[in-house]
């Protein structure tokens, strides 16, 4: 592999690490927010992103827990997605990239991306529905605004992963042909 490609790969690895750390902080912050909004709601104004859903909690606990479970699962899934990306980039041997480990990881990445997209899509629908019932969910749009992009990206990665898996199978068969 050329030096330029190696340089680009290392750069992408650093970017992936930065995104992973950022997503972990976001997920952690949201979990802390959730705990505080249950036990000490007045303190939420000082916390990460100031997501104050105490009104919703008072009016409808199901809506509150539903929305928070969507927010938390989406942010945790995003962090886990980048954990898999980093693990793949660390363990991948660029001189021999076509093996079962890489194909399984790419497939996993596609599953997580698709799940994030679908979760975001349903969350957006639920939030829209809650707006009709008088709840204010505008501040939460940032969590599921990119649902379609994730679904599209997941579908594309799934297709690539399937082709990659078939390629690995063919290579394994070729290696075992004498």
């Amino acid at each position, binding site marked *: 592999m050329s030096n330029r490609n190696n340089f680009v790969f290392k750069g992408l690895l650093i970017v992936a690490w930065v995104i992973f750390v950022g997503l972990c902080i976001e997920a952690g912050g949201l979990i802390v927010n959730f705990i505080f909004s249950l036990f000490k709601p007045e303190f939420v104004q000082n916390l990460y992103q100031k997501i104050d859903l105490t009104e919703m909690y008072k009016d409808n606990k199901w809506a509150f827990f539903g929305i928070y479970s969507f927010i938390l699962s989406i942010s945790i899934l995003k962090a886990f997605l980048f954990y898999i990306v980093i693990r793949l980039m660390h363990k991948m041997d660029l001189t021999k990239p076509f093996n079962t480990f890489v194909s399984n990881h790419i497939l996993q990445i596609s599953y997580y991306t698709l799940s994030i997209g679908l979760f975001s899509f349903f969350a957006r629908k639920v939030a829209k529905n809650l707006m009709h019932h008088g709840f204010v969910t505008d501040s939460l749009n940032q969590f599921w605004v990119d649902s379609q992009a994730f679904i599209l990206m997941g579908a594309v990665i799934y297709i690539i992963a399937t082709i990659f898996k078939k390629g690995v199978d063919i290579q*394994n*068969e070729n290696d*075992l*042909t*004498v």
Partner: protein
Amino acid sequence: MAIIVNLDVMMAKRKMSLNELSEKVGLTLSNLSILKTGKAKAIRFSTLESICDVLNCQPGDILEYTNDE
């Protein structure tokens, strides 16, 4: 697998070692070992021809079909 490779039987009959066969056939030891242990997924006609030529036998002496069920 339903196809059994009897290469070791033929080698024993011809009193030929794996090293000797590898040299005469022109296959690497690792590839011959894959074939002998039954891990191979496929065998080229050219390889089969060379093995039959060296061991002076028929393909049926090396490959055998058994019904797994």
